[in-house]
């Protein structure tokens, strides 16, 4: 079994329901996110549009975070999920430095690394991840990539514009996007101009260690 995710960006309307569901389900602390929806505005007024891109851990087949973790706190489980053992983590932030997708953060409450686990605890109880359940338009498609009859496999078969983030990194992500353009997947394809963010005053909790 190899579990994977696909987000159909044609359907996503940026409601952030998945983001909130994830926060509640996993008790993600203030100022950190396992899953977040990025907004990018494209074009010049009046010809403008807003794009939405849910971002979460890609559960790579060749995960840099798993490789660099000195204590195997980040590890694969048999269904392909890259899971994390917070009791074992020493908080070296090697995984934070290694993840090309910026999907790993240091939990300010436990001072350990954390990230999306595809809701591994729910899957163990035969439930879908919280974000899948919350999505009002079924933009999140989750399932077994090894099973050609699963919804996600069929979706990949039926759509030609299936992409992953940063394929050049050789990580082989198990997280796919349909309908994604360069502005959705490439962080360098959009500008980050001060004052343009919808929420500029975001509260961040202090972390241990030393950060600038």
């Amino acid at each position, binding site marked *: 079994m190899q579990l994977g995710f696909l987000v159909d960006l044609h359907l996503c309307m940026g409601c952030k329901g998945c983001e909130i569901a994830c926060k509640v389900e996993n008790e993600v602390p203030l100022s950190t996110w396992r899953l977040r929806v990025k907004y990018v505005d494209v074009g010049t007024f009046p010809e403008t549009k807003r794009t939405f891109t849910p971002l979460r851990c890609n559960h790579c087949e060749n995960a840099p975070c798993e490789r660099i973790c000195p*204590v195997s706190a980040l590890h694969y489980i048999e269904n392909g999920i890259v899971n994390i053992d917070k009791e074992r983590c020493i908080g070296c932030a090697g995984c934070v430095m290694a993840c090309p997708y910026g999907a790993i953060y240091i939990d300010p409450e436990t001072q350990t690394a954390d990230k999306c686990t595809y809701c591994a605890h729910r899957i163990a109880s035969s439930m879908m991840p919280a974000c899948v359940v919350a999505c009002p338009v079924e933009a999140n498609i989750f399932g077994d990539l090894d099973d050609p009859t699963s919804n996600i496999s069929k979706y990949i078969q039926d759509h030609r514009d299936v992409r992953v983030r940063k394929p050049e990194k050789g990580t082989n992500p198990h997280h796919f996007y349909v309908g994604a353009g360069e502005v959705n997947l490439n962080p360098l394809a959009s500008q980050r101009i001060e004052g343009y963010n919808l929420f500029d005053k975001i509260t961040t909790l202090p972390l241990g260690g030393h950060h600038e």
Partner: protein
Amino acid sequence: MIHESLAATQAVVTLDVPLPDVFWGWFVTMNMWAKSIGTGLIFMLFLLLRKNSGEMKGLRTSTLIVSFIFMNVFLLFTLADLHQPFRMWHIFFYPHWTSAITVGAWMATIFVGLEFLMIILGFQKKTESFDKLLFWITLLAIPVTLYTAGIMAEASARELWQMSTESVQMILAATLSGSAAIILLGGSKLSDETKQFFGAILGLSALLAFIIYMSEYIFGGMKSEEVTAILAHVKGDGEYATMFWIGQWVAYLLPMLLVALSRVSKSNSLLSLAAILAIVGLWVVKHVWLVIPQLLPLS
């Protein structure tokens, strides 16, 4: 391509909450800097043994003690940078051998243990055993110096850090700071000829390291848009441009010039000044190169 698409799309991020910019800050710079001096001194002591063992007298134990202190500074800052420092023992009880962090922690621990043993041998005046052990600890100093480059290479998100260049830079940092430290430590115990020998190592290390940095500065971005974006921080009005050039001048250009002048004028003072500048400048150079890849947005 991205540059063209930016102009075409006018795409602007209007909602995103990326990670804090710099996760590995000056604690990690201290780690790399102190380790360079610690292992560099061992390299230089071994060279001294091979070149002129007569001048080792009075330098064996003192050099080992200074190296031991810097290696402990390195370990202290490594520990202090952990968010869960009291779980450091997990590295020894749950080791994950694909991680350069694990391999490095083990090697550095053995290295420091060997240094402690050599200091005891030094106090007991067991010169022969000391010199035999010096060969083995010099061999171990090579991977201990290199493993940080392995960590940087495993940090896949940071395109700037490539194993090929970082490993050479780590060795050069060790020979630069090690030669500088032994020039200062040796004082009157070293002959002028030996000092000039270490001065030559200092000057050549500075030259090679400078060439590599300039190669990356000028050509690094030509094959990767990520490296282009990262290097923008040290070019033009970049946030770290001034600090970058201060580092290059203080660590490499001025010491090279001073080493050359000291050879012409046979001045030990100029050589000592070159040594001090190289040690100070190395910290700045390492810090800039550590921080700038972390300023790149990943999402």
